[in-house]
């Protein structure tokens, strides 16, 4: 990031309800024109964070700085933040035009200016013909565009989006997501969006903020979160990861249980409890007779052909299964491993991720010694 001060800066923002911290020391910097998505399971504090920024909820501690100005104590109607609500929250007793121009009327803008701005925004969201309709006469997608137009009309300093796609039909979501992105970029708006849907988040964000239990777990672009999760929560929440708990020995042997050991691709400066994260599509199933030495050998429980890949379930010691996705490219007609048979597994150095007992990611200390062929 540049040396320029960030457009939006959130410092140790907290919200306590009694002894419960809904938002726990959240800090974040957002550059001008950036779209940042807050992602997490329900109850992780992402919506409360958004509502703190909008001013609907008063912070227990911390600061919100927009263009260097402290927004603490500023009522929401003076914050100039355009908010798009999950339920759209369109005024049912006003037409589309009245809804969109509401913010302009509240600013006591001259009527002629309101009219031209309204026309401009209606064209932007392609709702010119709907101006005199009432919200209940519109489809869900159209209502969503009115909500967006209403927030854009006031030229907000910050665009806040609270689960904007969750009330839309699945086939409409991608289209609306692209539309929101287009409008946000065209207007050069800085935007903060909240969602629980990681596909949606991955598709729309410049950067993601993964939250859990009121705390920021990791901030970064999509690739960083997927390739280098900083803790097991992020590894499991972004995409899917198999999390294997065991005891690390010699820096590169993870004992998972009775008779099962994973030979890691890299060495780590750690001895003791550790968690190995492996993504299903990054594990290779070694065909019988393959000379590559296996890093781990497990028994096949089940194999299901699902189109793009075959999903294997492999038995782990102490119950639980490891999920493995074997691509079907060039695999047509090949026999699948039958339940009960032993399968050798392998993976690359870049595909394994090790976390210590306190769930911190470990950097590799170097390549592990080569495995002996079996």
């Amino acid at each position: 990031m540049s040396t320029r001060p960030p457009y939006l800066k959130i410092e140790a923002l907290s919200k306590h309800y009694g002894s419960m911290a809904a938002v726990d020391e959240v800090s974040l910097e957002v550059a001008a024109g950036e779209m940042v998505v807050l992602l997490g399971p329900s109850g992780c504090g992402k919506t409360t964070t958004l509502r703190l920024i909008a001013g609907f909820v008063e912070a227990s501690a911390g600061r919100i700085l927009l263009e260097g100005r402290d927004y603490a104590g500023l009522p929401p109607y003076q914050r100039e933040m355009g908010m798009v609500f999950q339920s759209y929250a369109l005024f049912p007793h006003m037409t589309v035009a009245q809804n969109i121009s509401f913010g302009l009327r509240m600013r006591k803008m001259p009527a002629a200016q309101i009219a031209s701005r309204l026309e401009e925004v209606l064209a932007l969201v392609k709702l010119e013909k709907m101006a005199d309709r009432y919200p209940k006469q519109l489809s869900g997608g159209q209502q969503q565009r009115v909500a967006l137009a209403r927030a854009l009309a006031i030229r907000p300093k910050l665009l806040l989006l609270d689960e904007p796609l969750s009330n839309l039909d699945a086939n409409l979501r991608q289209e609306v997501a692209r539309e929101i992105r287009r409008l946000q970029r065209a207007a050069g708006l800085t935007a903060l969006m909240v969602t629980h849907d990681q596909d949606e988040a991955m598709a729309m964000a410049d950067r993601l903020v993964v939250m859990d239990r009121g705390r920021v777990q990791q901030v970064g672009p999509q690739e960083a979160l997927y390739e280098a999760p900083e803790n097991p929560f992020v590894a499991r929440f972004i995409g899917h990861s198999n999390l294997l708990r065991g005891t690390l020995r010699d820096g590169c042997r993870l004992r998972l249980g009775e008779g099962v050991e994973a030979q890691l691709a890299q060495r780590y400066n750690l001895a003791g409890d550790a968690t190995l994260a492996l993504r299903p599509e990054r594990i290779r199933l070694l065909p019988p007779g393959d000379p590559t030495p296996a890093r781990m050998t497990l028994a096949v429980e089940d194999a299901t052909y699902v189109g793009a890949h075959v999903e294997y379930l492999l038995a782990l010691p102490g119950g639980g299964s490891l999920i493995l996705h074997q691509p079907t490219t060039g695999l047509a007609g090949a026999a699948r491993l039958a339940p009960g048979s032993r399968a050798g597994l392998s993976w690359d150095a870049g595909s394994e991720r090790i976390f210590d007992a306190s769930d911190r990611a470990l950097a590799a200390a170097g390549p592990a010694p080569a495995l002996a062929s079996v």
Partner: protein
Amino acid sequence: MARQPSRRRSGEGLTAGLLVGPATAIVLLSLVAPLALLARYSLNQYDRMTFMKEAFTAENYLRFVADPFYAGVLWTTLSIALVTTALCLVIGFPIAYGIARMQSRWKSTAVLLVILPLFIGSTVRALGWIGLLGRGGLVDSMSGLVVPGGGVTLLYTSFAVAIGILSINLPYMILTLQGVIESIDARLEEAADSLGATPGRRFWHVVLPLALPGLATGGILVFILAMNAYATPFLLGGARFQMMAPMLYREYAVNNNWPFAAAIAFILMLTTLSLTAASTLLLQRRYQGA
């Protein structure tokens, strides 16, 4: 696949008829029949010996209209009802709004506090007001302490009647409005907030228009209750302060003039009905399209 409404089974009409039938019979027996009887009475003549003589005359109605005393009682009743309704709206709305938007665990306690006065009958509450407002009552002796020798007796004034009716009707208004305000999505207010509406303008442009049907319902309910109030004006108004319901009772039970009492009943009912209908029509016109 939408089913054609015309293709409904013919049995449905019969079932609906059977379900509505008993209720309709009860309404006919308990409401329409007595009203018809009362309408008939109101056209009869009063007779000193037999009390009522079969006739077909409008003289009872004409007597009410012609005598300024009776017109005055109707006017007093109307003004008390309108003033208490307006006060109920103004005082009830903020309380109802506060309770509707309450999120704490005290919300049910607040609702209970509103309902609690309804457990006590209007007669008992009127006695309470007598103790408060009457000669030697709390207000009298308190003001006597401030200004020596200058006590205030508020009992048997229109003020006493108005405050008595207000205290009885307020819970109905609050409960009606609370339900309506709760049905207004709180997010709408936040949306108005984020679009730059100050609390005052948010109320005027968003909350009030959306609560208007509820204000009408509550207003009509409270207005009807005030128009027909009996115990409160009887006990707090005294002998000189006249309202329709106590007067109607006196004509019926004390003077034994059933035809005139029936006419008063119809005049009271028609006044209330026509005002209620007028206000409903007015609101409906305002709300067309929305």
